[in-house]
């Protein structure tokens, strides 16, 4: 088989490069939009992924990880007594406001957990970091959030409510893309930070309450449960549901799925990012279609000659599809490479997770190939419509 499609494509290098720029743009846009969406969905459940709990117990009204109602602290002890529970640890998740050194407000989610516990660790941290969190008025934050909190690093400080909070450790890869800034603290510190403000009375100074042990009057957001080895998780979930009124138990996977599904379905982000990807697809198709169409138009007499000779339609399809596939391949490789570089940069400098997995990369290649072949469809129509009588015109 004579490689006519390939040779025609590479005959005019500047035009080929213009086409490749179009494909590269389309690949980049589609890959990054998909990557942002996947990263966003993935990042929404990072805190759950970080836990080693088998079951998460939440209030029945819980919508997703960050939006739930409190439950009484006594539920923790009740959960620990349920047969099949090896360990139960509390977690607090609540929204409040951080004021940095410049007093600028930042919307934050305080996540309180047991630093000495075994079921939750906020990303890659050391035992020294966790030990530091036990001290009063301390917190641990993701490196990507330092700028948002207006602190330089460890030792930086700000205020949450009436508390003066000091950053004692840093982590990374824990912050969801679209969410308030996460701040991790010990359970006791979290309770202090989230305590309602004292009434503003004349001549009364507002002071932060001192951290102390949890009692019946306290609330928590979640109970993280580790099952005994060999326990039937479904049966344990049912027992927890029965033993803890007003709550519902989820496996770790169910909890993560529920959180991700909330963001996927309840927000318009998928639509917006999908629209961006569609724009990339359409622009890429327009550029490739125009280039292939021009290529056919430039060789119209030669194609007419093939038709005059009696070439079947499948030959024209083969030529244009070969060109389209080559454009897809040669545009895809640099396009996906560039997208991966952008993803690495975004993670390193902005803490934004752009998740381009092998499956995403394969999907983008399929989309690119489809885009180029669809664009080639317009060009092949031009070739098929050539009047062979054109060959007799000088």
């Amino acid at each position: 088989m004579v490689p006519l499609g390939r040779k025609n494509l590479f005959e005019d290098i500047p035009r080929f490069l213009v086409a490749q720029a179009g494909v590269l743009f389309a690949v980049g846009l589609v890959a990054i939009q998909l990557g942002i969406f996947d990263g966003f969905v993935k990042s929404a459940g990072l805190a759950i992924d970080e836990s080693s709990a088998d079951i998460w117990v939440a209030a029945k009204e819980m919508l997703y990880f960050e939006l739930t109602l409190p439950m009484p602290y006594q539920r923790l002890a009740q959960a620990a007594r349920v047969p099949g529970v090896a360990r139960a640890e509390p977690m607090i998740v609540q929204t409040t406001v951080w004021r940095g050194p410049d007093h600028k407000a930042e919307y934050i989610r305080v996540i309180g957990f047991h630093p000495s516990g075994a079921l939750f660790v906020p990303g890659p941290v050391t035992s020294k970091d966790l030990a530091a969190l036990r001290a009063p008025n301390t917190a641990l934050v993701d490196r990507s959030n330092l700028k948002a909190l207006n602190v330089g690093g460890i030792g930086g400080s700000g205020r949450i409510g009436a508390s003066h909070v000091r950053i004692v450790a840093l982590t990374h890869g824990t912050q969801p893309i679209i969410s308030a800034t996460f701040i991790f603290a010990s359970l006791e510190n979290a309770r202090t930070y989230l305590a309602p403000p004292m009434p503003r009375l004349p001549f009364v100074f507002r002071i932060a309450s001192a951290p102390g042990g949890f009692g019946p009057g306290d609330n928590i957001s979640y109970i993280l449960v580790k099952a005994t080895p060999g326990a039937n998780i479904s049966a344990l979930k049912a027992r927890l549901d029965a033993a803890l009124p007003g709550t519902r138990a989820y496996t770790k996977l169910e909890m993560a799925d529920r959180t991700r599904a909330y963001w996927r379905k309840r927000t318009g982000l998928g639509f917006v990012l999908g629209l961006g990807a569609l724009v990339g697809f359409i622009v890429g198709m327009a550029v490739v279609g125009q280039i292939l169409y021009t290529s056919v138009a430039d060789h119209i007499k030669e194609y007419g000659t093939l038709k005059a000779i009696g070439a079947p339609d499948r030959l024209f399809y083969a030529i244009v599809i070969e060109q389209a596939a080559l454009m897809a391949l040669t545009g895809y490789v640099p396009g996906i490479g560039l997208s991966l570089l952008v993803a690495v940069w975004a993670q390193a400098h902005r803490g934004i997770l752009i998740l381009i997995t092998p499956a995403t990369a394969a999907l983008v290649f399929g989309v690119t190939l489809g885009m180029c072949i669809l664009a080639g469809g317009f060009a092949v129509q031009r070739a098929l419509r050539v009047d062979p009588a054109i060959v007799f015109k000088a």
Partner: protein
Amino acid sequence: MSTSVEARNVEMVYGSGAERVAALRGVSFDLSAAEFLLLMGPSGSGKTTLVSIVGGILSPSSGAISAFGAELTSMSRAARARFRLDNIGFVFQGFNLFGALTARENVQLAVGLKDCCKGPESLRRACALLAEVGMGEKADRLPRELSAGQKQRVAIARALAGDPKLLLADEPTASLDAESGREIVELLRSRAKQRGCAVLTVTHDSRIAEVADRVLQMEDGILRP
């Protein structure tokens, strides 16, 4: 000598109503096997229309064309394409070679259209055809590296790729100088005679007339002997 092509009362009308133009008016002629027939006449006399109809590219408004025993006018578009592939070779004034393909690949592309000549066989046959037209040494040259005469030789090799029984040549010497034109016509004639292939050539070039077996003059869509 057996008859290759028979044209009977062929009429071709373009447009309709006030725009109606009769390009061919009751044209009839025969073309024998291995005959070198020249069709001459002024521009717009209907020569190219007649060649297009004989080649099965256009369908006449009325009349009948048969070639090698087959009635071209009753064939579907696809059947005519198949018929051309099996029986007819074309040579054009503008060569119409793919600029990105070498001489060998241009010929190989046409050879490969035949079911019998795929893969290495198409390569072998393309090389043989180029050698036959004196272009064996330049098989790997691109068209832009060839002179006009050499390009037309490649185009003749391509036209012979399907082992045709009829060669249709439209102004094959119009883009060539006198000497190259004479060589090309000699080549066309010799290859056609050797293969027993009929040739119908349209031209303005009166110098070709001396090598033709017969010359037909066309004027205002009417053939004059």
